[in-house]
C-alpha cells in the first residue's frame, strides 16, 4: 500500500501520526483518502481550487512532483511525501 508521509506541522488532524497507509490510486485520491480518515488534513495541502498550496511541495519516492501532476498513480510501496516550509526569522 502507498504511504503518505505527513510533515510535523500537519500532524494536528492525524493526531500525531507521521505516516498514513492508503489504497492504490492517484496522488489526489491518496490525499483524499487521508482526509477521509483524518478530517481537516486535506485543506492543509490543497487550496480551494484543488491544487497544492504555494507553500507545499510534494515528492513521490524522493522525486519532486509537479503541481499539475496530481493524477500520477501511486501503488505498492510508493511513498508520497509532503514538505512544508516552517521557520521563524
Amino acid at each position, binding site marked *: 500500500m502507498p504511504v503518505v508521509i505527513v510533515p*510535523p506541522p500537519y500532524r494536528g488532524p492525524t493526531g500525531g501520526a507521521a505516516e498514513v497507509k492508503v489504497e492504490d490510486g492517484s496522488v489526489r485520491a491518496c490525499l483524499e483518502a487521508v482526509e477521509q480518515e483524518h478530517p481537516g488534513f486535506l485543506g492543509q495541502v490543497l487550496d480551494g481550487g484543488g491544487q497544492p498550496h504555494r507553500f507545499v511541495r510534494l515528492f513521490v519516492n524522493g522525486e519532486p512532483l509537479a503541481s499539475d501532476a496530481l493524477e500520477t498513480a501511486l501503488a505498492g510501496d510508493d511513498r508520497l511525501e509532503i514538505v512544508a516550509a*516552517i*521557520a521563524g526569522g
Partner: protein
Amino acid sequence: MAGGPSGDRIIYVDMTSQSAEVRDFPAEWKLLGGRALSAKILLAECDPACDPLGPDNVLVMAPGVLSGTAAPTSGRISIGGKSPLTGGIKEANAGGNPGQHLMKLGFRAIVVKGQPADADARYGLEIDGDGVRVVAADEYKGLWNYALCERLHGRYPKESSFISCGPAGELRLAGASVACTDQDNRYPARHAARGGLGAVMGAKGLKFVMVDPGKTSARQPADRKAFGALCKQYTKDYLAGPQMFKTGTSSVVPVANMLHTFPYKNRTEGQSPDAQTLDGARIVESFEERGGGMHNCMTGCIVKCSNVVHDAEGNYKTSALEFETLTLLGANCAVSSWEDVADLDRLCDEVGLDTIETGAAIAVLMDSGQMDWGDAPAMKALLEEIAKGTDRGKAIGNGAVATGKYAKHGRVPHAKGQAMPAWDPRPLKATGVTYCTSPMGADHTAGLIVNPGLQPDQFAWESQKAQIVNAVCDSSGFCQFLQPTMDDIRGFYAALYGEDVSREAIHDQGWECLEDEWKFNSGAGFGDEDDVLSEPMLKDPIGAAPTVFDVSDDIVRAAKQRMPAAEDLFTTKATG
C-alpha cells in the same frame, strides 16, 4: 590525523581603561564556538548577580566553530551577556560577515568588560591584521545604524565589516539589538536582536566594532579532502532539495495562519484577517517592478532566504523582512500592509531594536487603548520617539513587560520577561515547554517544534531534543535555516580538526551548553518557579479547537532532566 586551525586567539577589551589585549585561545575549547563558548565564558567570568547595565556584565561576541571556513552558510556570530530584559543569560546570533572576518583573522571571541567612567563617551574597537585598538568615537554618538555604517565605510577599508548599536543601545533600553553588516558590508541589516544585548554594548560605551580581514583566506581544515567533499556533497544535497526558504521566511505567513500561530491583536486571536496582504508572496511580487530580490546575508550562504525590499520608487528600503517581523509588527498590531511593516522594520534596524520585542510592546500599548489598532503612522512616530528617549519611547524600547507597567495593562504574553515570538505555545505546546525551560525565555530559536499533533507524553523529549540540537547548531556557526543535524555538524568538526567527534561528544556539548546557561540563571536568582508562561497564555484560548497552554509542571520539569539520547537526536534538523 589531528591538526586544523591553530594559533587562535581571544580578544579581551577593558572599557574602564579603554584597552585591549590578545590572549591565546585555550586549545581544549577548540570545539566550542558561538553560543556554547559564550556560555562558558560568561559562567567563568561574569557574576550572574551583576547589574546587566553595569561594569561587571560581560559582553561576548563569538563566531561559530565553522565560521571562516568554506562550510556553507556557516558564518553566524553569537552575541552573549546577562540580559537586561530577562535578568538571565542571553545569546542572540546574526548573519552578515563580522563572524567570518573575525575567524579568518584567528579571533575566536571578543570579551568586553568594564565601563567608562564617562557615560557620555563613545568608543570603537578596531580589529585588523595589525592588531586590536580601542579608539574614541564621540563623533558617532546617537547616530542611527545606517548613518553610522555609512560614515564608517568612509573611514575604513572597503572589505571591513561592522558590529554596532543604535540609539536604543546607547539609551540602554532592554529591547535593543546588536547590528551586523551584511555580506556586501554595506547595510547594518543583520541583528542579534533578542534579549537587549544592544543595551549591554551601549552601556559599555562601545558604539561599533570594525573588523578588517585584509587579504586573509578561509580557515584551513586538517583534512582538506574530506572537508571539501563534505562541503560539496552537503551543498549538492541542499540544492537538490525543496529549498523551502528560497523566497524568504516571510513565505511562512499562510502556513502559520493556517495553524493558528499568526497572532493577531496582542495574541487575542491566532489568525489574522490580513494574512493575504502580509504574505511574503506580496514581497516577492514586488521584485519585478521595484527591483530588490533574494540574496545571501553572508558570504558562502546557499540558503539565500534574505529578501532585499525596495520602495515604490525602486530604492532600497530594508533587508530582510522576515516572518517574525511581519507577525509582531504586523498582524499582532493589526497592521495590514507589508509595506508599512517594511518601514517599521527599517526603523527598528536604524534605532537598533528587536522587532519581536518592539512589536509585542506596541501591541500591549494598543491593547490598553492608548494607541489605535493598525495605526502604522503612529507606530512609525513612536519608533522615532524611542530614539529621542521620551518616557513613552523608553517604555516601548524596554519591551513588552515594561510597556505593560507603563500602560497599566495586564495582558502581556511573555516568558522570563521576554515577549513571545510568533510561534504560539497554545497550539504548539512542545514549543511552549521550550519557552518555559529555555535559559533564554520565550525564544523560538532556542527550540522550535511546529507539530500540533504531539501528545503530552512527547512534549518533554521533543523540547529537550530541539533545545540540544539548536544549542549545537548555534555553536557551530551554521544558520538554523540550513537545518543541519547533529550528525552533519560532527562530521564537519571531524574533518576540520582531523579527529572523530562521537555522537556522545556532540550530545554532551549541547547538554553542557544548556547546563552552563541554567547554572548562570540559578546564580542570577532563577528557580523552577520561573519556568512558566505569563497568564494570558494560560487563560486566553486560541485555535480551531480553542486551547490554552495547559502542560503540567511535571512535564515542564522533565524537559530539564537529561534523557538518554534516542536515534532521532542526531538526525533531527535544527529549526528556528
